[in-house]
């Protein structure tokens, strides 16, 4: 068969792969947002900026210190996570007693600062980041050509998402975390350091964004604007999935990425807005989101 629904299979699978890649980033970012929201009740508007920061740290490590991709994969999330811990300790923690909307406004301001600073120093044009030697080339799967690096991104993000799910749902630390989400006062009364857990959760959530940034660096160019447009789509993903469940956030991320890829094949004009349209439909049918519960 040379075409599927009048589309050459090469183009179809190519776009589906692209959708899966986008979906990997949606999943990683919405996972971080959901983890942070569960613990802090804050929607982290700076998530996109921190994703960008992760990519920039990797790029700076390479260009200034000659430190390559694999070390960057470890170091950049650590740097971003440490930055997040500082933000949480010095700024965010002052707002917990107030309306949650102030957390949103604060992180919005932080996003403007981080993005604006990088724009000031590096301009808006993208910086190329080379694919690591180990992952160059690709596989011919018979029906399509799969670049190694893209396959790696999908696998790596799946592993990270599943590991996070396992850590939160199946380990003792995760049990503490879930308990503290439900009732922080009671958990603290049992002698668990809840403020520390909150800080660690924020650090972990933004480290995920930093990791996503490093993974994205060789695919998209490293640019100060790479986070801000992505984060709005991720917000829509989060509204569609609901932030009640970790697995839900991940599944919605991949699903919407694929759907976006399909739209690019069949009706390219709508590919930018398809996620928002789906959000509107989900709001009409199930306002709490596909996996959500009303809080």
């Amino acid at each position, binding site marked *: 068969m040379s075409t599927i629904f009048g589309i050459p299979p090469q183009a179809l699978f190519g776009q589906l792969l692209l959708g899966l890649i986008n979906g990997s980033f949606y999943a990683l970012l919405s996972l971080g947002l959901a983890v942070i929201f569960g613990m802090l009740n804050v929607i982290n508007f700076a998530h996109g900026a921190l994703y960008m920061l992760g990519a920039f740290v990797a790029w700076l490590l390479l260009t200034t210190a000659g430190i390559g991709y694999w070390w960057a994969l470890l170091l950049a999330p650590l740097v971003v996570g440490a930055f997040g811990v500082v933000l949480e300790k010095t700024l965010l923690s002052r707002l917990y007693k107030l309306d949650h909307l102030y957390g949103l406004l604060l992180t919005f301001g932080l996003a403007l600062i981080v993005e604006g600073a990088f724009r*000031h120093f590096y301009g808006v044009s993208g910086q190329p980041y080379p694919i690591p030697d180990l992952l160059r080339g690709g596989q011919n799967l018979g029906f399509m050509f799969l670049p190694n690096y893209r396959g790696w991104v999908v696998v790596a993000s799946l592993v990270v998402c599943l590991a996070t799910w396992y850590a939160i749902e199946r380990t003792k630390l995760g049990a503490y975390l879930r308990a503290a989400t439900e009732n922080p006062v009671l958990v603290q009364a049992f002698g668990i350091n809840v403020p520390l857990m909150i800080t660690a959760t924020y650090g972990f959530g933004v480290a995920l964004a930093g990791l996503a940034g490093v993974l994205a660096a060789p695919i998209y160019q490293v640019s100060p604007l790479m986070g801000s447009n992505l984060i709005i789509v991720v917000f829509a993903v989060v509204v569609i999935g609901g932030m009640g469940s970790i697995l839900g956030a991940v599944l919605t991320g991949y699903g919407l990425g694929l759907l976006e890829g399909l739209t690019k094949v069949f009706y390219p004009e709508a590919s930018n807005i398809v996620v*928002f349209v789906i959000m509107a439909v989900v709001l009409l049918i199930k306002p709490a989101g596909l996996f959500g519960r009303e809080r």
Partner: protein
Amino acid sequence: MATEIHAVRRETAAPATGRPAMPGLLALAVLLLVLIAAPYVLYPVFVMKVLCFALFACAFNLLIGFAGLLSFGHAAFFGGAAYITAHTVKVWGLPPELGILLGTAFAATLGLAFGALAIRRQGIYFAMITLALSQMVFFMALQLKFTGGEDGIQAVPRGHLFGVIDLSQSMSMYYTVLAVFLFGFAVIWRTVHSPFGQVLKAIRENEPRAISLGYRTDHYKLMAFVLSATLAGLAGGTKAIVFQLATLTDVQWQMSGAVVLMTLLGGIGTLLGPVVGAALVVTLENYLAASNLPVPVVIGVIFVACVLLFRRGIVGEIAARFGNKRP
């Protein structure tokens, strides 16, 4: 949600209910005199810009300050109306008043659609939904034919108001904009001090209780949303005539952020706060554009400082200091 609304109430200085307090009236009178005299002292186009953004911020404030709903997508109404006004005036050749009217009507329709979707969720979700929906408008403005993509719609003729007043004269343009602003401001004033406004405040303070008293709070919230979107559209349409321009900047999420900042800086829930905030932010942007400082960073720092240090905003702080006690 109830707890969230409580928090908003504690942070915002409630305006005078019923009969407006004397200091408030005095401040209004001073403001009016300043605005009438302003074009003789300052560059008229600059003051017109301030007025357009002040109306935009007042419209936004109607929603957050009096109904407790944070919309992060008001750029869609402002910019959407700007595009419609610019298109109808330039391509269809309509007179400016009709163009602005059509732009405003478009914003109202859009507000009805977005509002109906967004009020299905509350708090943070409400903000995210409005942001996502407005991003959809942004992509449409980027892709549709009539919006001119990256260029926007340029060289929109100002035309003659009601076929008589030549708006290419900057003074007649200025007083037209002032009239539009005063009209919008009066609508907001009237709304806030009406029984409808009282119900909105009741919803902001305690929604479950408002429901238990028999108010269909969703209807009230939707009406507030549509009204706010309409006035934001009025501001956007007027802006398109003043600057003879509608561009992607008007529909971008940064614009939604800017209006949040203006309101926050001036004082959420105060009538004059958004005007003060808009004047400050526009002035600041003008000065920064000439300097070497990165604008978003400065704006971001002000944002963070506002949230951490003075959440009542400038007018809110003044009202709290100098006795403007709640009657």
